[in-house]
């Protein structure tokens, strides 16, 4: 057993003085280079998924552990050496270090993997799992992030690769800079882990691989013999590569070797590639013998009866995992009926090429492709149920829907992932028509009665915490029983006698939710008992609530933080009904805000008495081409009228996982509706019939987490930045709304100079300065003499008073500090 070892980088290593394997390896490399020069087709594609490896947490952690373990051993050795140098060797020797604990903790909490030993320096390797929605969490766990930086302007790695078929979702990728680089796994993808190489190598030799050591030059170049490469390492040659590959596949199907070992015969390169390394993506396929599926009817019956599981199919050699390379040796039929005698495998189901998130879209194959991508980004922002334990969790932010529903139009993926149990949306009856003009630009008109009855109602849970700090001088913060007679009593009404707000209390803005006091002096060590400080030694540090009002304290939790300080956590709940400007979206990348809320009696109604929950403008359809949404409406309408959930799995019409429009129309007609899903509708305002038939039916609508209440902002006067005395920026700091360069340009072009003067100076940072007309420098105002004085001319003769933006005065002084003298030259206007 020789020739088979390599360095950490996977390069052939030299065994003693024997350079022969290395020479051959280099020669093969050179041959490949020359091939590539002569023939561009022989060039490897770096975007080909078969040439890529995913790194999983196990690999990364094991690398980190190896590094830390080696650091620890050297540390222990150093300690021991130091110890042994000392005269009293018999002393108790403590060699415990916490290098591994600290190192793991630091790396996992910062996410920065800096492993010098392996020349690894990566940022953002750990992420906090998105828990804002169930689907968001699922999507996050299937995400694949690239290593290299996102700024490169190449299109190659961003483009859809044919080899990612079935392995990576073609729809689910973010928009913007990471577009196409960040990917998501498809529904059935498995990422391999490392497998022991030794036994596999010896098995290869037993199956007739000839060691290169034993071959003469002539034998090396026998035309029909193939080079056997195992995990990037040349094992030897084989005279009958196809038989060799078949033998390995047989062993794999019999379960004698791991199910994720792949063999791939490359005719062009005269090579057989074996792979057992970790990080390859692979997917299960049904094995077919000469085009006949190995899975028979009785197997499926056993599966339905629950006698047989997926793993049994694998163990019995009915299914197998193929990686991207081995797929090149397979001829895969989409359906059993399409199989010919050459077919080696049959797809399990076509909808599995999509990932978890794209799998939620009904009829995605009828939509314009970018719409599905938009929905993949939006599905993660939808509110609903996030987990079964959602009400026992203490997330810093949680959005829940009060009445989440399961979609009327489901897909197989929805059932497989459990979205039907943890839904994030509601089935709204939608009328596609124009109404009132408040529905332009994708805005939707909502029925007030529907909102009254709970449509789109959501719960926002926010966590606030208060820490009872222990200070360096043994003093500590304290919580005080509220003084019911003090001036602040009004703000302390929600407090219990323990000084902490009680669950169930309704909060008003500026209510105190924890009556905390801090010692004034936290530095100087106290003599005697630190606990018995007088009341005068404390100042109030009460935390007051900054919200909208109407929030309720859901839960109060007492715990200790990592520094062993007592920590009080408040979960504050806010129930909100939809309001103007809240964002909604269907499952087809069609987002829109609520444009207006209309009384039910003004809403259109059909003679059956159906009144929509929502009105969507028909202009949303022609340019978006979301035909899937129309079919969802039809299917949903048929679903409610016949009492059966309809399916819309991707590409599912042929296999019965998606209802066909013809069948849906038939159901509609049998229930007394028009086959096209259109209804004859009366105006609720006039009582007259509308001029057109209206396309109306249920569509699953998601409420997205972007709500007006969290965003709306306006300010008259307010806080200013210390340095420049200009208004602060941003909603969180109650900031001003900036008149930017472009707005300024418009005002200049229009000639509204006084408006510019007002916006840019009077409403921002006006400042009165004393300017010396003689020297042009800024002076100051002497309050005693009641005149301005120029400190450079040492008099006040030529001072004139003027207004300047404070930022300008600041710049003049900053320039002066750099030995640049800006002088103001004043003239009469």
């Amino acid at each position: 057993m020789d020739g088979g070892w390599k360095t950490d980088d996977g390069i052939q290593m030299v065994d003693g003085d024997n350079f022969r394997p290395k020479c051959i390896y280099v020669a093969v490399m050179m041959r490949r280079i020359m091939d590539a020069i002569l023939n561009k087709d022989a060039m490897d594609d770096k975007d080909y998924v078969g040439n890529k490896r995913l790194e999983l947490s196990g690999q990364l952690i094991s690398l980190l552990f190896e590094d830390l373990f080696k650091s620890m051993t050297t540390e222990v050795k150093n300690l021991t050496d130091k110890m042994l140098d000392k005269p009293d060797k018999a002393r108790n020797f403590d060699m415990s270090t916490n290098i591994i604990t600290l190192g793991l903790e630091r790396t996992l909490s910062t996410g920065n993997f800096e492993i010098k030993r392996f020349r690894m320096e990566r940022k953002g390797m750990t992420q906090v799992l998105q828990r804002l929605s169930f689907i968001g969490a699922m999507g996050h766990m299937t995400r694949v992030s690239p290593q290299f930086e996102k700024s490169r302007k190449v299109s190659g790695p961003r483009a859809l690769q044919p080899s990612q078929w079935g392995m990576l979702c073609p729809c689910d990728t973010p928009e913007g800079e990471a577009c196409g680089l960040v990917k998501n796994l498809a529904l059935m993808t498995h990422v391999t882990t490392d497998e022991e190489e030794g036994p596999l190598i010896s098995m290869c030799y037993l199956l007739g691989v000839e060691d290169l050591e034993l071959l003469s030059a002539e034998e090396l170049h026998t035309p029909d013999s193939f080079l056997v490469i195992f995990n990037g390492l040349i094992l030897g040659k084989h005279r009958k590569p196809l038989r060799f590959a078949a033998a390995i596949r047989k062993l794999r199907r019999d379960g004698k070797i791991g199910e994720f070992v792949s063999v791939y015969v490359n005719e062009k390169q005269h090579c057989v590639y074996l792979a057992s390394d970790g990080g390859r993506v692979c997917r299960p396929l049904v094995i077919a013998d000469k085009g006949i599926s190995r899975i028979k009817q009785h197997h499926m019956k056993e599966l339905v009866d629950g006698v047989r599981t997926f793993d049994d199919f694998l163990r019995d050699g009915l299914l197998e995992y193929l990686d991207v390379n081995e797929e090149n040796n397979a001829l895969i039929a989409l359906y059993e009926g399409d199989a010919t005698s050459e077919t080696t495998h049959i797809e399990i189901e076509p909808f599995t090429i999509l990932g978890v998130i794209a799998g939620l879209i009904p009829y995605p194959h009828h939509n314009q492709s970018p719409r599905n991508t938009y929905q993949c980004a939006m599905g993660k922002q939808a509110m609903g149920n996030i987990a079964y334990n959602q009400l026992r969790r203490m997330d810093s932010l949680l959005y829940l829907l009060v009445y989440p529903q399961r979609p009327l139009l489901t897909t197989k993926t929805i059932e497989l992932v459990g979205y039907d149990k943890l839904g994030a949306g509601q089935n709204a009856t939608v009328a596609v028509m124009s109404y009132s003009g408040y529905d332009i630009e994708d805005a939707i008109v909502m029925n007030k009665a529907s909102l009254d009855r709970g449509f789109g109602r959501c719960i926002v849970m926010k966590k606030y915490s208060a820490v009872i700090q222990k200070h360096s001088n043994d003093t500590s913060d304290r919580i005080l029983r509220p003084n019911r007679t003090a001036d602040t009593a009004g703000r302390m009404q929600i407090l219990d006698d323990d000084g902490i707000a009680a669950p169930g209390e309704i909060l008003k803005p500026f209510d105190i939710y924890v009556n905390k006091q801090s010692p004034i002096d936290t530095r100087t060590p106290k003599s005697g008992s630190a606990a018995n400080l007088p009341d005068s030694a404390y100042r109030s540090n009460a935390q007051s609530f900054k919200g909208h009002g109407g929030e309720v304290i859901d839960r109060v939790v007492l715990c200790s933080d990592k520094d062993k300080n007592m920590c009080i956590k408040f979960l504050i709940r806010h129930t909100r009904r939809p309001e103007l400007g809240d964002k909604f979206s269907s499952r087809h990348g069609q987002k829109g805000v609520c444009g207006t809320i209309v009384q039910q009696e003004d809403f259109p109604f059909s003679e059956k008495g159906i009144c929509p929950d929502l009105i969507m403008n028909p202009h949303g359809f022609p340019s978006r081409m979301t035909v899937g949404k129309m079919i969802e409406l039809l299917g949903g309408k048929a679903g409610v009228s016949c009492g059966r959930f309809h399916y819309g799995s991707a590409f599912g019409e042929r296999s019965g996982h998606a209802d066909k429009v013809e069948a849906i129309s038939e159901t509609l007609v049998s229930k007394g509706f028009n086959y096209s899903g259109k209804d004859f509708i009366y105006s609720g305002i006039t009582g007259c019939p509308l001029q057109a038939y209206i396309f109306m039916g249920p569509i699953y609508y998601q409420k997205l987490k972007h709500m007006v209440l969290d965003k709306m902002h306006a300010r008259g006067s307010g806080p200013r930045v210390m340095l420049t005395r200009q208004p602060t920026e941003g909603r969180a700091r109650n900031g001003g709304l900036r008149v930017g360069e472009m707005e300024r340009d418009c005002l200049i072009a229009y000639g509204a100079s006084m408006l510019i003067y007002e916006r840019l100076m009077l409403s921002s940072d006006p400042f009165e300065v004393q300017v010396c007309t003689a020297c042009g420098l800024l002076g100051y105002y002497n309050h005693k003499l009641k005149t301005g004085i120029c400190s450079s001319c040492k008099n006040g003769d030529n001072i004139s008073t003027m207004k300047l933006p404070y930022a300008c005065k600041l710049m003049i002084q900053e320039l002066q500090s750099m030995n640049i003298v800006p002088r103001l030259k004043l003239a009469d206007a």
Partner: protein
Amino acid sequence: MEGASYARMPRVKIRELKDDYAKFELRDTDASIANALRRVMIAEVPTIAIDLVEIEVNSSVLNDEFIAHRLGLIPLTSERAMSMRFSRDCDACDGDGQCEFCSVEFHLRVKCMTDQTLDVSSKDLYSSDHSVVPVDFSDPAATDSSENRGVIIVKLRRGQELRLRAIARKGIGKDHAKWSPAATVTFMYEPEIHINEDLMETLTLEEKREWVDSSPTRVFDIDPVTQQVMVVDSEAYSYDDEVIKKAEAMGKPGLVEIIAKQDSFIFTVESTGAIKASQLVLNAIEILKQKLDAVRLSEDTVEADDQFGELGAHMRGG
């Protein structure tokens, strides 16, 4: 008192009347009156619904607002509502909304003591006024009491408890849908169907059947004896134009003529149970009258002419 009279004498014919369902014809009037009646039924007929909830103990899985919202949507029998006061203009309690003239108090005290899930329903709500109670949906014919629980509010497991006081007040559907007594109010124009018999006779039996089947609803049928196409149920027609399109496609335009009668309406009224469907219609008419009286009361004022213009003149004239 001059000028043409616009007054008409609408006629009502009741077709079907149940406690929570009514179907009637409204004739000799126009869409404005029919629609006004519909709108008033949905939005302005008062009922009583729970409006204020004081929660004493709530250890259930649903939060306080959630339960309060669910309580509000429970329909309460509201025969009293028309004579009750709105709490905002109740003198007895200064608009506080807590006195007997404008409110009804409810209590709910439930605790689950067994390992079985306990359904808290509207039947657990105890009213201070026996005339205002949660609507009983149970079928009087069915005797199985375990099946006939009311509207489910929340489910409790062992040890969980719900204790609250609720105040029900009078209100209208315009303010909140919980006060709307109407589950469905809708009307349709009565269709008038004329079959061109001469043209119809030019069709073969096969063609006739094909034409009859083209309607998604069963409007036409073929007489098994005479083999003539006849109208079975003209009101089943949903104005879908399918038969007309079919006739055109068969090369026989004008085979059938369907017009919506502009002065006849067929109303369907379904009540939530708060008041009887018949009472709902009567109350709606009463409120409509009151609204018109409000207009008429200000008939002499100049503002009335500004506000109502020609309508004011009509009121005086008519």
